[in-house]
């Protein structure tokens, strides 16, 4: 006689074109913006992760007292500070947290240029009887890249060489009588066999199964499946190799996948993989393939930066839409640094602007020469593929003849270099930047919200104020105050010929043992997963329990000497 029955009615099954909101933050309203008109425009809508319909348009109608937007090359995201004339327009009262936010600022030609597209994580309300206001801090979507961790995507946590990828296996192990939900990244231990494996993914269906990466040992049918010493389920059969013919993941595929892929980016990072360049000819060409094993706590952004630095790529966050006024889509670019200005494969930057005292003239030019950036002694070293260390020291003649006191840069162990020639070039670049070009210029324009970070500017005719030549905007700030009556754009520029050095110089290459750690980790990952602990009990039949040193949990094991 049946002791379990189910009688379930199902009706009204439909498919739709709109994605269902899945946010756990309770945001159910979904929105896009209509065009923004007027001198200043900003719009708030529901965070882009769950768009299904247009339902909310927000224009502050002059309630923005001031806006300060900062976009710097060395920052991992741009930020904006927006002050509203009274509460209820910002975050706490209006529930605008985490919503997609766009801000437009008029340029000199009267076009409302989108200068910020991001989200509001926080606000700061200030109450005063006569001047109540609220200040909200917003960040571009790159914020999410800094708040997502590689441990959340075990299958992407390492970017391996094609050879090492070929060594990866996937084994499917069916289970039944589940008591707890398995999670990717957990280590599963066979209660009887002692076999172990890291869960790559969990599959539910007619037959529930976990997929393990490179399991060690052989799981037995009907044995307990333990996670942290706790029984999660029972094995139903033995693990089956389902590796098949694996597709080799390229760096560009890896970056695309991290962003969430072409289909899933909107609810993964919010950044569309808009222009992700091929690494063909570079990965395994001009740059040897190498493994990039990341820690669980490494952020997506840190991981992408590390791979980018090695390959000479740049990660760039921008936005775009069909028109200036239409809804702006957050977009990610990942291209070679040398392709920034390429008309088709570049960053889609506005054309270079020629600045003269009588054309596109700024209102202020300030030389920014920071003495703390100065150095006259540079040391760089690297370790070649064969293990040989290469060194290069460059110093000024004054240091050599003892007429200058040495001012050193921290010795740089550069894991991105592998030859003496590369070390020599790197040392020369750093020396050139630190000794002769440790200066940038801050240029203040009126109503130039059309300018973008990394755009080129050509200066001519300013004599000693700024030498003639081509410059690149490395930092840009948009400021609006007094309810839009003051509208300035401040560009920090560097000679474009020094930009490459600037990019490299501003990265940290001082973790000298990282390369060695990488190699050690690669070797460790090839070994069976082992845990250290203190044996608690043995049953005399080959079984044992032990308390792990790592987390103090009681776990089953195998008695090596029954």
């Amino acid at each position, binding site marked *: 006689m049946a002791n379990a029955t*189910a*009688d*379930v*009615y*199902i*009706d009204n099954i*439909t498919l739709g074109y709109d*994605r269902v*909101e899945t946010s756990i933050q309770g945001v159910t309203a979904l929105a896009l913006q209509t065009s923004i008109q007027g001198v200043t425009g900003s719009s708030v809508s529901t965070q882009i992760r769950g768009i299904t319909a247009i339902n909310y348009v927000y224009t502050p109608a002059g309630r923005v007292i001031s806006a300060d937007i900062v976009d710097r090359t060395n920052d991992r995201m741009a930020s904006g500070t927006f002050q509203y004339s009274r509460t209820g327009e910002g975050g706490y009262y209006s529930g605008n947290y985490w919503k997609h936010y766009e801000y437009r600022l008029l340029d000199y030609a009267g076009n409302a240029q989108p200068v910020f597209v991001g989200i509001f994580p926080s606000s700061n309300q200030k109450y005063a009887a006569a001047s109540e206001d609220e200040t909200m801090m917003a960040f571009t979507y790159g914020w999410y890249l800094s708040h997502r961790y590689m441990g959340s995507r075990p299958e992407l946590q390492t970017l391996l060489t094609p050879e090492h990828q070929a060594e990866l296996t996937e084994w499917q192990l069916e289970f039944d009588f589940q008591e707890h939900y398995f999670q990717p990244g957990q280590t599963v231990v066979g209660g009887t066999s002692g076999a172990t494996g890291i869960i790559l993914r969990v599959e539910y*269906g007619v037959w529930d199964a976990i997929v393990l990466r490179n399991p060690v040992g052989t799981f037995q049918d009907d044995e307990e499946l333990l996670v942290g010493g706790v029984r999660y389920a029972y094995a139903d059969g033995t693990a089956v190799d389902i590796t098949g013919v694996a597709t080799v993941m390229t760096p560009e595929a890896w970056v695309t996948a991290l962003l969430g892929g072409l289909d899933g980016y909107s609810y993964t990072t919010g950044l569309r993989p808009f222009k992700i360049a091929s690494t063909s000819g570079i990965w395994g060409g001009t740059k040897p393939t190498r493994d990039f094993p990341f820690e669980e706590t490494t952020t997506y952004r840190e991981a992408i930066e590390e791979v980018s630095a090695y390959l000479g790529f740049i990660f760039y966050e921008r936005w775009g839409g069909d028109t200036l006024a239409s809804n702006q889509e957050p977009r990610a670019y990942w291209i070679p640094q040398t392709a920034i200005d390429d008309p088709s494969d570049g960053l889609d930057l506005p054309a270079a602007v020629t600045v003269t005292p009588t054309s596109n003239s700024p209102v202020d030019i300030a030389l920014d020469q920071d003495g703390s950036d100065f150095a006259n002694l540079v040391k760089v070293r690297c370790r070649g593929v064969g293990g040989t260390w290469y060194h290069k020291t460059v110093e000024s003649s004054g240091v050599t003849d003892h007429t200058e006191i040495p001012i050193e840069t921290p010795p740089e162990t550069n894991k991105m270099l592998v030859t003496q020639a590369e070390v020599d070039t790197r040392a020369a670049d750093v020396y050139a930047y630190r000794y002769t070009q440790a200066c940038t210029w801050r240029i203040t324009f009126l109503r130039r919200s059309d300018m973008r970070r990394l755009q080129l500017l050509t200066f001519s005719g300013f004599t000693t104020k700024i030498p003639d030549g081509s410059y690149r905007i490395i930092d840009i700030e948009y400021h609006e105050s007094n309810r839009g009556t003051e509208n300035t754009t401040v560009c920090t520029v560097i000679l474009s010929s020094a930009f490459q050095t600037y990019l490299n110089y501003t990265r940290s290459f001082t973790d000298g043992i990282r390369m060695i750690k990488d190699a050690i980790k690669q070797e460790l990952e090839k070994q069976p997963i082992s845990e250290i602990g203190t044996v608690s009990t043995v049953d005399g039949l080959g079984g044992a329990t032990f308390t792990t040193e790592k987390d103090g949990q009681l776990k089953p094991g195998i008695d090596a000497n029954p």
Partner: protein
Amino acid sequence: MAFTNGDFETGDLTGWTDESSGDGTHAESVTVTTGAKISGTYGARFQASADNGGGSVSIAQIKTYFTYDNFKSLSFDYNPASIVSQTGAPIHLIVYSNDSSWSFITIYDNVLDGESPGVVHVDIDLSTFDFGTNAQLTFLVQIGG
């Protein structure tokens, strides 16, 4: 509605294939009845039964094929009219697409004996579903397994 007879208003399983299966001892079936309607005239009734103390599995299941057109959401209503699980065996309502195992979704899990929450509306984000070219959807009520 993107596929045939999602509301079962034809009064039968037109457009769907009944793939119910079990241990051969107990009954499992999917039928279209007026009593199972949630709106309209007809609804689909999923009945499964098993002696789960013996570990048997019972599945009432229907499947349909449709033309994939970049769908992003799936919605439906269900009403667990009667759930009995004397041994505590799990009872699932599962929707999955094709054979792409990673796109399985367990909607209704570990229903308590005698629990009847009434009509429940479900919206599923299909963004991560891999329908492939021969898109199909399967609804099943499963005891055990």
